[in-house]
């Protein structure tokens, strides 16, 4: 029922939009895409999407609407986020042309482009007049995630950034403020360094445990490695020595960050050493931790926005409505970790249509609706999203939320993206796992660096240097 209502509303919106655009003479990118896609009515495209709730934004909203407007059937193919890469590469090797639109994490862009798995899009962008609307994407995403070798290879579609969520009620509590100052000699406030984060974490844990702990972060190895990447660079680390291409993640800075990551687990809930996003989220929503670092969605769910939806049944009811503050993760520049872009598979039998679907979902008009779907897991990435009056009124301090997100987008740092990125991430992930098992940080990082060097040698030092230099030259690769 809900769905029908929504569809109806969207159809109305589309009518209004059509009227607006015809009035303006210049048709919107969405409208152009729909008109052009109509000639493919009756055909089907396969779209790879990270599995889970996030895919519902496609399955429930975008795909049916596109079919209704154009007669093109959109088949959403799901794979777990970390496996999407494997599936895309394997599918390319299998060569069945099974995928038309490919979702990708921007850090895979280099590999997918070099291997010829995704198509350059410049001609299609020109042909269907998408260039103007692409300019509306936040510069950090547009300048870093879109091109390889000077060509447009993927369209940024998700403004991921690591945020710090904290409990305002606890931070503002006068008793806490007084006790904290007495103990640490400075005011209790949102941490801007990891040292402060640690002080505050210990303070809350010592004050409230076992009912509440200072903080919780995702320790699942494949995701935790992003935290290392972020903190290592904020502390002044460089991944490689450009001359030798030796890995430097085991230098003094790397070991210090690794040690911090390990020590912080001490004030987090006992047993959280292997927590996945869901466990962290559950502890947060049920009010058992004072701070978390996470991707943007908990900001929405903390306020109960959209969690009455059937698709979000698995989200425990929020006990912390109205008590949540937002900040960039400490240390300066937050990582634009993960994030998703859309690209056209070079094996696709209908590249033009695949592109049109991307242009349509990514357009100003449709993307604004998508980033507001409670279950879509797509976070604001266009200027118009951050500025949307509708979004800013979704809950009491939604405007604060969007401001912090935007700030993050402006100064955020990229995930490392070179050749065989996946193997470097995998090696780093294993190191994180060992840290959480309490092993010696120096030893752990030495092994990780050795593994990195091995991958570099296997890839070819010169080839890798070229890829690294291209990446490192991007404005958001290292803190400015």
């Amino acid at each position, binding site marked *: 029922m809900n769905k029908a209502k929504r569809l109806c509303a969207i159809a109305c919106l589309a009518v209004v939009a059509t009227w607006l655009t015809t009035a303006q003479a210049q048709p919107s990118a969405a409208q152009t895409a729909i008109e052009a896609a109509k000639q493919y009515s009756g055909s089907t495209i396969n779209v790879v999407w990270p599995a*889970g709730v996030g895919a*519902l934004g496609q399955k429930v909203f975008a795909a049916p609407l596109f079919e209704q407007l154009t007669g093109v059937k959109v088949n959403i193919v799901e794979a777990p986020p970390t496996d999407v890469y494997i599936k895309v590469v394997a599918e390319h090797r299998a060569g069945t042309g099974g995928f038309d639109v490919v979702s990708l994490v921007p850090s895979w862009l280099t590999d997918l482009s070099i291997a010829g798995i995704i198509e350059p899009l410049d001609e299609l962008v020109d042909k269907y007049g998408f260039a103007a609307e692409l300019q509306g994407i936040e510069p950090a995403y547009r300048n870093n995630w879109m091109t390889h070798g000077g060509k447009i290879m993927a369209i940024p579609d998700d403004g991921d950034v690591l945020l710090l969520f904290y409990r305002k009620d606890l931070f503002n509590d006068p008793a806490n403020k007084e006790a904290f100052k007495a103990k640490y000699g400075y005011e209790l406030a949102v941490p801007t360094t990891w040292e402060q984060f640690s002080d505050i974490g210990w303070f809350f844990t010592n004050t409230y445990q076992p009912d509440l702990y200072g903080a919780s972060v995702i320790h699942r190895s494949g995701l935790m490695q992003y935290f290392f990447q972020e903190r290592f660079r904020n502390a002044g680390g460089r991944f490689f020595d450009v001359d030798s291409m030796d890995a430097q993640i085991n230098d003094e800075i790397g070991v210090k960050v690794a040690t911090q990551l390990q020590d912080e687990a001490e004030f987090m809930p006992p047993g959280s050493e292997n927590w996945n996003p869901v466990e962290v989220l559950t502890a947060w929503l049920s009010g058992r931790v004072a701070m978390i670092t996470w991707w943007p969605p908990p900001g929405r769910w903390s306020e109960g926005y959209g969690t009455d939806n059937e698709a979000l*049944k*698995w*989200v425990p*009811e929020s006990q912390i409505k109205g008590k949540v503050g937002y900040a960039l993760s400490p240390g300066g520049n937050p990582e634009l970790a993960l994030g998703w872009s859309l690209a056209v598979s070079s094996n696709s039998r209908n590249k033009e249509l695949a592109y049109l679907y991307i242009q349509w979902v990514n357009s100003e008009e449709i993307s604004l609706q998508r980033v507001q779907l409670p279950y879509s897991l797509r976070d604001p990435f266009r200027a118009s999203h951050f500025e949307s009056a509708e979004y800013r009124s979704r809950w009491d301090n939604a405007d604060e939320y969007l401001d912090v997100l935007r700030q993050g987008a402006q100064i955020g740092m990229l995930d490392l993206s070179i050749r065989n990125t996946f193997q470097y991430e995998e090696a780093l992930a294993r190191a994180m796992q060992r840290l959480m098992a309490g092993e010696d940080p120096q030893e752990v990082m030495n092994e990780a660096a050795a593994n990195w060097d091995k991958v570099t040698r296997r890839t070819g030092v010169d080839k890798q240097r070229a890829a690294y230099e291209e990446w490192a030259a991007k404005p958001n690769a290292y803190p400015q």
Partner: protein
Amino acid sequence: MNAQNSRWKRQKSLKKAVRFALALLLTAFFLAPVYWIFITALKSPEEIFAVPAVWFPEQLHFENFTSMFSAGELKPIFNSLLVATFSTLLALAVGTLAAYSLARYRTGGRALAVWIISLRMLPPIALAFPLFLFFAMLGWVDTYHGLILLYAAINLPYVIWVMRGFVEDVPLELEESAAIDGASRWQILWYVVFPLVRMGMLATGVFAFIYAMNEFAFAVVLTRVDVLTFTVKISHYFGNQTTSWAWIAGLAVLGSLPVFIAVLVMQRYLVRGMSMGAIKG
């Protein structure tokens, strides 16, 4: 004499009680994790992440299953059942024929028999990548027929090995008298041998079915989307940013139930099936 007798009896019944208690304890140990995954599937999100753990939820929540159904998450169960069923049927048909040839003619001698059973024991993951490339060439990756053929092949050594035993149990005299009456080989197979090994085939089939239902290594490499099996889907949930234990547990329950039922029904043949025919229970 009498007093001694009754003491002996008492001792015996005490011993029996101790043994019963031990059996009870052991069963509890072996069932506890199974119980836990079943009950997790029926808990609310709050109860799943409750501290301390909840042994008996206040109310059974079947929403996990309905929400999985409406999200289209149950197709892997269907895929597993379909692939397991058809691969089992194929393996039984092909395998019983081969078993007959092996049992009655000793075709290929000991070497062939040993080669066949040794295939059952190779590590699947060591075979999966060449097969992936081969399937990719044929366009069989992520197709039903690809996986069905593969699972049939993987189960074949087992089926041949066990069915060989069942065929050997068929009295040779019956076949001989049919032959004297002028029946052809195929007729003998169909009218004499088949009715006598039918139960054996059923028992063997149950184990082939279980193996195919539970298989993971091949499926994880050779399926993507359409033919995703439930074991692979469960592993996907581990990698997800957002899915909860409720769905892992839900899928585990739905995937295990057919196997549990099959085993309970085929209790009589368990020993023979599991020992690959070595013990005729």
